[in-house]
């Protein structure tokens, strides 16, 4: 899939490819152009310049062929609230022009797969947020499209539903699907994606595997907090050469971890040897903010809408 696109306001040159059977994460803050990009790729939106090819079809000249081979799950769960889960699935199946038998058989299969069998005959408005998202995703898979777009699939979900969603997305990939997902969370991109494209202000600012990006971003950090100034000062002298930053007011210090597990153990062992007890410890993973800080030298900030 190729795409290059120019628009003064929203997208100022986006260019990337997704290899068949892989997951690509489009990572960026609100207003970066993620949704706009997905809307263009899924034929919902026109664009001024460039070419977009999905599964070998040009989105402008062969929109219907593209639509036959994609499934789209947008940010707002786009299911019919008054219809039941099963009715939603069958309806969308019929609109993909599946035969009646196929639509029903596939609906049953998806209800099973997404744990919605018990709720199958209840109107979707009675579903919980997590169930609605699952139904929404199931609906986009009704015709087993080989290419799937997921626009912020876990935004607004509780941690459990988020992990369940990650499992589902991973299984889709195992099933051979090509997936493009957008996310604001580095952790999510890290978990799921083979490749990450970071966009900001309508431009691609980095492109690579999670490992490659993280190498550019920096390492995990260990933060230790102590109960008394005395303990804190002793710890500072013991750990001196590893310390990146100290905060005397909070009696806390930060260590950069080259190898997260080994370095944490080494630090704790060292403190134990000197009988220095700490009150709290936390390992900080690089965040999206860190990515942006490293890549652009500025904080990721929320710019206006789409």
């Amino acid at each position, binding site marked *: 899939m190729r795409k290059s696109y120019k628009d003064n306001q929203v997208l100022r040159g986006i260019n990337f490819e997704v290899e068949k059977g892989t997951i690509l994460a489009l990572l960026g803050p609100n207003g970066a152009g993620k949704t706009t990009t997905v809307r263009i790729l899924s034929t919902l939106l026109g664009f001024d310049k460039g070419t977009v090819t999905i599964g070998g079809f040009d989105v402008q000249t062969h929109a219907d062929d593209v*639509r036959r081979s994609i499934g789209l799950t947008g940010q707002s769960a786009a299911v019919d609230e008054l219809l039941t889960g099963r009715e939603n699935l069958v309806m969308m199946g019929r609109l993909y022009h599946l*035969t009646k038998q196929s639509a029903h058989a596939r609906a049953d299969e998806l209800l099973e797969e997404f744990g919605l069998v018990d709720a199958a005959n209840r109107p979707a408005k009675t579903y919980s947020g997590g169930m609605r998202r699952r139904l929404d995703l199931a609906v986009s898979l009704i015709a087993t499209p080989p290419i799937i777009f997921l626009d912020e699939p876990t935004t607004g979900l509780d941690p459990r539903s988020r992990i369940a969603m990650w499992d589902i997305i991973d299984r889709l990939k195992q099933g051979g699907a090509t997936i493009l997902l957008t996310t604001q969370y580095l952790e999510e991109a890290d978990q799921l994606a083979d490749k990450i494209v970071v966009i900001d202000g309508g431009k691609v600012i980095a492109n690579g595997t999670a490992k490659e990006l993280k190498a550019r971003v920096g390492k995990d950090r260990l933060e230790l907090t102590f109960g008394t100034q005395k303990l804190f000062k002793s710890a500072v002298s013991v750990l001196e050469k590893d310390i990146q930053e100290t905060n005397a007011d909070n009696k806390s210090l930060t260590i950069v971890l080259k190898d997260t597990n080994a370095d944490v153990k080494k630090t704790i062992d060292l403190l134990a040897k000197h009988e220095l007890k700490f009150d709290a410890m936390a390992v900080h993973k690089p965040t999206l903010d860190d990515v942006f800080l490293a890549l652009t030298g500025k904080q990721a900030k929320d710019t206006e809408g789409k």
Partner: protein
Amino acid sequence: MATKLEFEQKPRWVLALADSLVMIRRSSTHIVRNTDQLLGTFFQPIMFLVLFTAVFGGAIATGSENYTDFLMAGIIVQTIAFGSTTTAIAICNDLQRGIVDRFRSLPMSNLAVLTGHVVSDLFRNGISTVVMVLAGLLIGFRPTATVQEWLQFIGLIALFTLAISWLAAIVGLLAKSVEGVQWMTFVVIMPLTFASTAFVPAESMTAWLRPFAENQPVSQMVDAVRALLVGAPAENSILLAAVWSVAILVVSMPVAAWLFKRKTSQ
């Protein structure tokens, strides 16, 4: 993904028709599932009918017929006009909730979304009309229509419903919120139904209003229905009502389709 999927292999226009049927089925299911709407469909017309008969029945001189006979046509047309708001609200909701984006990402006929709502409106108004006629019979409505006149009545009512629903589709596409829809329809439909021959004869109205009340489309429709059901003087109202409906339909359908396309590709 054990199931082997089979796709319909049919010409494009057959598939487009099938899409419309799927969407009509969707919107029709809404009629039954949406309790508020269901109440509106059944009770609102009965309430209007009973209230108007009881309140105005004694006060309005309508000539020879009894007031229920006179009112029936007005209530039927008014209910259909107000009922079209449902189409506008449904379309406005669809646009706001993002489900239109989903439909547009499918290899389906996009216009089917509108067709579904408009045609289900036809069913809903059909039910309303039957309920009203039955309720009317209970409180003294005595139609004189022949079988042929009943059929003409059904055809005319269906045509009018389609026309006004496509007009409502435009409102639904233009409005930015459901409240907006309600306001827009109120401003248009309220004067059209009340400044008409629906509830009182035009002769009793203020001089400046009379020409409008006598000639506007809702009045033509009311006069036509009244002529068909209770044998009131028709003049050329049946023809004019049909012409108005067709004219509205011919204009509003392409406008709605164009608006839908424009509104959804931004």
